[in-house]
């Protein structure tokens, strides 16, 4: 109930955000912080001990009982981790939107995105899951289309069509499950727990072909969102031309949708995923990792480089899922938990990087590596935070990304064997281009054409610094979240 109330508050405030004409930035800043605070309290109250891996805080409101439409919600530790990610990313994104001259429409749309993400995470009914899944796309599409930079039209369109294509398959899969459940039990239900339950999935109710159809639809939809090679072409354009606050949401928030799909919906279905499909997912993960890393290396625009870096590190999520469902026992848990942790870590790290890059951009007016150079001399704090983000992003121990990458890589050898060298190759390239970019953009002789600059102010340091510290804490003391996630994963093994 508590969770639903938070959600209700979020919906109301997002509507209100459209109408708050003055001080709309302050309004959204405060609301997103309140939401974060409430979710945090909720987590402390419900997840501190005794969590057994199931779905708690269940709430259901019957709307159209005849065809099984009701609003039902629930929270698992997977959901919680991603909810925390969403609610942490939002204030950062809104904070980044401080200096732009955006109106209330902008903040309203931002809040609406959070509503969508929040909603799809807590929904336990497929129809609402789907509605919120779609509801995320529209505000982001509009944000890019209205406020974006160059090529915003084609970028937003590409984003829209791609994700829409994925959604169609998602819907088809949901409806297939729905239809076959009716076929078997003569009951209309869209309840996720029921439709994803082992007895229904593993039974004879669904013909094999349709099982594969369902699997295919889900995987396709989630791979687009991830994004995974070769369905990624919306990503660099959308990230590149979106205004920075939206990029933060895109990278930190929207990337979790694909991951949530994998671990929230496909993991319960893992018993009917044939190993050939797992291998395809693994292969796409490895290809994403290596391919995006190599492409990122040649990007001169830091924003585009980070966009590819983001896609590359989501490759780990693919690998984790594909490998994890083929394994058994304790290292399968490690593998899958690592994947979920990676979504969280990646979201935080990439959000930090984009937010910091935004500060660099607004100080220097440049986001091209060659137009920067040696800025550490003028803005040491800002450049140190950016370096911290880059180090975290390449998976350095001590930061959250290491915990997940280590879990994924360490436990993967049992399935992928020597292919691990390709993963490692990808990681070496990743390290190389991160460090190379840092060397060219931050160090070396100062590019005097940039003129004198002031370092970032106290508020910026506080926001960016606390995000960096959070990433650090999650890297040193992962059991804040890791333990409860592994319980969620344990349920399906």
């Amino acid at each position: 109930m508590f969770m639903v109330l938070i959600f209700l508050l979020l919906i109301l405030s997002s509507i209100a955000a459209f109408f708050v004409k003055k001080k709309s930035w302050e309004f959204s800043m405060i609301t997103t912080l309140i939401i974060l605070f409430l979710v945090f309290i909720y987590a402390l109250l419900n997840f501190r001990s005794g969590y057994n891996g199931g779905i708690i805080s269940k709430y259901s409101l019957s709307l159209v009982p005849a065809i099984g439409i009701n609003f039902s919600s629930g929270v698992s530790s997977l959901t919680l981790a991603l909810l925390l990610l969403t609610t942490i990313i939002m204030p950062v994104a809104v904070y980044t939107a401080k200096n732009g001259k955006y109106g209330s429409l902008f903040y309203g749309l931002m809040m609406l995105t959070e509503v969508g993400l929040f909603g799809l995470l807590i929904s336990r009914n497929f129809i609402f899951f789907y509605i919120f899944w779609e509801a995320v796309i529209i505000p982001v599409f509009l944000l890019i289309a209205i406020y974006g930079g160059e090529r915003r039209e084609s970028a937003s369109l590409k984003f829209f069509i791609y994700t829409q294509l994925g959604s169609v398959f998602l819907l088809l899969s949901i409806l297939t499950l729905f239809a076959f459940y009716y076929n078997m039990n003569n009951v209309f239900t869209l309840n996720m727990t029921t439709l994803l339950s082992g007895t229904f999935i593993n039974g004879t109710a669904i013909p094999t072909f349709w099982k594969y159809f369902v699997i295919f639809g889900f995987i396709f939809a989630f791979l687009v969102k991830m994004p995974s090679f070769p369905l990624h072409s919306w990503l660099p354009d959308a990230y590149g031309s979106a205004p920075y606050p939206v990029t933060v949401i895109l990278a930190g928030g929207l990337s979790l949708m694909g991951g949530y799909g994998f671990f929230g919906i496909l993991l319960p279905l893992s018993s009917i995923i044939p190993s050939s499909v797992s291998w395809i997912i693994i292969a796409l993960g490895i290809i994403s990792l290596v391919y995006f890393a190599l492409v990122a290396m040649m990007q001169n625009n830091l924003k585009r480089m980070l966009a590819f870096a983001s896609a590359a590190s989501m490759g780990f999520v693919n690998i984790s899922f594909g490998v994890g469902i083929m394994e058994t026992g304790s290292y399968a848990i490690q593998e899958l938990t690592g994947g979920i942790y990676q979504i969280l870590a990646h979201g935080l790290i990439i959000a930090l990087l984009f937010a910091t890059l935004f500060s660099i951009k607004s100080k220097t007016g440049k986001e091209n590596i060659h137009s920067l150079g040696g800025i550490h001399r003028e803005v040491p704090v800002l450049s140190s935070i950016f370096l911290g983000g880059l180090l975290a992003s390449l998976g350095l121990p001590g930061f959250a990304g290491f915990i997940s990458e280590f879990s994924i890589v360490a436990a993967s050898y049992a399935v992928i064997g020597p292919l691990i060298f390709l993963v490692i190759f990808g990681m070496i390239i990743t390290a190389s281009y991160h460090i190379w970019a840092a060397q060219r953009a931050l160090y070396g002789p100062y590019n005097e054409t940039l003129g004198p600059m002031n370092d970032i102010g106290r508020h910026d340091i506080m926001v960016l610094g606390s995000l960096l510290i959070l990433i650090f804490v999650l890297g040193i003391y992962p059991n804040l979240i890791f333990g409860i996630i592994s319980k969620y994963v344990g349920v399906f093994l």
Partner: protein
Amino acid sequence: MIDYEWFIFLSPIIAFPISFTVGRYRRNLAGYIATISILISFILSFIVYLQIRDTSSPVYQSFNWFGDINAGIYIDHLALVMILMVSFVSLMIHLFALYYMGKDPNKHVYFAETALFTGGMLGLSISSNLVEFFLFWELVGVCSYLLIGFWYFKPNASSAAKKAFIVTRVGDLLFLIGLSILYVSLADKVASPLSIAYIVNPSSWPQILNYVGTTNLTLIGLLFMGGAAGKSAQFPLHVWIPDAMEGPTTVSALIHAATMVTAGVYLVARVYPIYLHSTAALDFVLFIGAFTALFAGTIGMVVNDLKRILAYSTISQLGYMFAALGIGSIIGDSAISFALFHTMVHAVFKALLFLAAGAILLTMMELRDVKKMGGLWKRMPITMTLMFIGAITLAALPFTASYYSKDTIIDASWNFFSANGYSLFSFLPWLMLILGALTTTIYTFRFFFLAALGKPRSELASKAKDPSKIVLIPLIILAIIALIMGQFQYLFYDFIYAHTIHVSIPYIVSLAPSMMVLLGLLITIPLYATSGWMSLDLKKSRLYRVVKNKYYLDKLFTNDIAERGIIPLSSGFSTFEAYFSRSIEAIGSGTLRLGSFFRKLQNGIIEYYFVVLVIGISIILLIVELLGGF
């Protein structure tokens, strides 16, 4: 819950933010905070030493970190030697750095980072789990990266930092694969698969052999050695250290000579049971080590940059340590004693040499070419005398510490030869190590004579003078230790491994290393103690050119692999990506005309969206209908 032993590594780590923050306002305090935190570590290490010196049971604490990975502290005699060495040498170097870095405007950053580094190194030494070990392993790597690039505005420094990071990262990730293999072999079967306490416990070995298998053990050993080679700069991953000399000299002393680069040696020693069960891995370690010892020595003979000479010397000496570890197939755990004693001796005299070099470079305004020095002994008598002590220890003149530690390793490699039936293959390590000793003597006295004797060959050299005596105190302490430490050889051996064997080889063979030193002196004295070297022209020699170009390995990595391999691959992929993206757009706008469709229907988005929804639903209902669903 947390005992005082934790503060051995926590104390400098806590000092990191403190000295940074305080240093922002009071620059001078930063250095003192860092130094005191390391003093605390040293004192605590000493207390632990008093506590476990007579027992063989280690200090061991561990808690669950994440998943089935634990973390904690594990201090046995091996770890104890490391923490005593690291905290002591780091303390000496910090004391000297108070003077050396005294005028740098960013010295608070420097001290914060060296404190963090020391904490990382101490944490690495007492980790109870390999993942935790890996965490500190990377932490010291990052500190090394940051400190090499400390003078970030120098293009050389920032590019050297990048090179160091990437090359060691290659090794680190090989190490990670090794961890992965070990992990999946043991997870699910034992409670804590990557625990160091579990691996070093002899009673767990029947289990490990059973679960992991000898093939995988060899593989793990090789991969761990790959990681160690990256960190400890062994062939072919040694290329980063000479460049790393761009950092402040105290950093070179602390990180790239005395402590961090020994982490690889320590890793192999730490998981030595794995190697003892795989002769192939041991032989690999032996040959890499012995080869590197000679290989780096030869380059050291032709380099003119004082710090780079010392860097190649470090690589070569690390080779001796690995060689010692590699002889384990014959001498068992005694190999650890031999390697660690030399590690310790090397830390002392190399820190001494680097600090003396730091004193020289400070007065020489960072002019590092030894051919531009000369006559320094007269102008800086104390510094040069200290450097002389360092040099004779490096060259292993009789009765210096290295005479005991290094010659034992060379002697032990003769045992490898004799135990393998005097085959040619098993003769190579001894041969390479003994020739390495010759090169050591030559490059040592070459640089020392060039710097100390003759007439000053530059304006700066003629104006050089000693720093005040107070700042040289750490060097004096190190010099005294370097001179007397050898006498405690067997005490030390037995402390690490109670049953260390005494190497016995034919008397005539045991004289060989000293003969090499003599030979080396006979070559260098006439050449470099006089002005004989000025008439020496080697440029026409092809061999000289090959060595001078560092056997073209740097070229291979930088030009061939990075510039002709990775970069074209990467730009090829980017071009492909651009085409891919454009063709997707072409399909989108060309075939479907969706672009214009949208531009006409500015407000039609929701409608279109709805249409898709309806079509989607209709299709699925149709399918279901056809199947006889409803």
